[in-house]
């Protein structure tokens, strides 16, 4: 498969964070995520979206990420364990 551009990778990471698949970016390290965490997040997103769980940002995954959708995250954390001030 053709390798992803940096822009596609950034878009993917942003998307996964936005919809609850990756933890919010650490304010110190910025967007740095481990490869394992990223793979796991992609698989979770693929499973939730009904795609094959490849763990890579393949074409089908990118297409789904571009599909219009609701703003709320797919994976929700209990409120008391959230470190965010608002939903």
């Amino acid at each position, binding site marked *: 498969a053709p390798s992803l551009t940096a822009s596609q990778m950034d878009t993917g990471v942003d998307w996964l964070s936005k919809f609850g698949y990756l933890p919010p970016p650490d304010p110190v390290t910025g967007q740095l995520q481990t490869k394992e965490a990223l793979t796991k997040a992609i698989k979770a997103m693929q499973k939730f979206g009904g795609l094959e769980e490849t763990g890579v940002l393949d074409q089908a995954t990118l297409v789904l990420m571009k599909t*219009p*959708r*609701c*703003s709320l995250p797919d994976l929700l954390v209990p*409120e008391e364990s959230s470190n965010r001030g608002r939903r």
Partner: protein
Amino acid sequence: ALPPQSKWNKRHLSWRVRTFPKESHLLGRDTIRALMYYALKAWSDIAPLDFHEVASSRADIQIDFTKADHNDGYPFDGPGGTVAHAFFPGERFSAGDTHFDDDESWTFRSPDSHGMDLFAVAVHEFGHAIGLAHTSAMESIMRPYYQGPVGDPLKYDLPYEDKVRVWQLYGVRDSVSHTIQPDDSYSAESPILLDLPENRSIILPSGDTPDRCSTAFDAVAHIRGEAFFFKGKYFWRLTREKHLVSLRPAEISRFWRGLPSNLDGVDAIYERPGDHKIVFFKGVKYWVFKDNHAEEGYPRPISDFGLPMEGVDAAFVWLHNDKTYFFKDNQYWRFDDHLRQMDTGYPKDMALWKGVPPKLDDAMRWSDGSSYFFKGTEYWQLQDSAMEVEPGFPRSVGRDWLLCTDMQSDSPATEPNVTERTHPRARNHADHAESSYEVCSCTS
């Protein structure tokens, strides 16, 4: 974050469209209000919730068409991308509020490619507004991705998946015939049941409904992950989490459409592997249901299966091999639903199922991988691929499946059942039944 208890404590919820699209050339204001009304109605049709439109700024569900960053932590991103969101129930000021991206091209009765169907998105968002989170179920309106128009708002029927989820939050909406005995003090303006979904246990069943704690069931089935217990004209339903949806049974004819109106019970039911259609057996006939509607061309004779014309006692699909097993008296058959033919070498003697009694009421598999066999007020468990009953069985069906937690007697018929002990009104009902006056009153 999802609040720990994400549901409304009240059942009457107000709503208003606070802001309309800036360029409302596609949809007029009245159309938008009507679509909101019908999107909310999709939920209130099945759950004990009532929505009413108000002009007040204190409406529970404030609906806005807004764009970009609108100071709620969920900025919109122009056409496409995120199109709407809603806030879960709770005490916060924004609870229930629903926002649509004003940069989208909102449409109604237009082809999918022409924009975003406002009704479809509104049904989804109001699902959040009453407490539902996203789901991965393909058929659900609560999938996070826009899936196009969903048809006529006046005829829209929520997917089964979503009905079950909202029932788990609020219970099932009672129809008029589900109410307790007609009472002059009750009127449409005072829908007393609507405020009491948690207190449904105080509602007595009508005179001819069986007692779930002491009855022997006609049929038990595992359908779409849930358990259904059938007795006479009624059935009880348990969710995937084994929670009883209601203490009161529902009438079979009011949910399973297409069976004869005079049907007095069913013999066995199972969900067909492969196409997930549901098969009902009664005597020498069977019906195939797609969801809760019988398909055309039924009933048909059970000889289609290669079964004898005496009928079946029980039917279930064994998780171990995905084959369907039929039981009658002390014999059983194995059927391949994928090939639609009976396996050779059957019937066999039920003695091969060690510990399982003959002349079963029914059998089913459950999500724990086990098979369960039911007869009388007892049941037997066989784990995984075992053909031998687990130690400690039989056990009480009522106690383990149907919330009869206080049942202590082995002869429930001679003891007050749990409903009677738990609720004074029920006890009175039982006591009164012993007087000729009350019996006469009931039958009249």
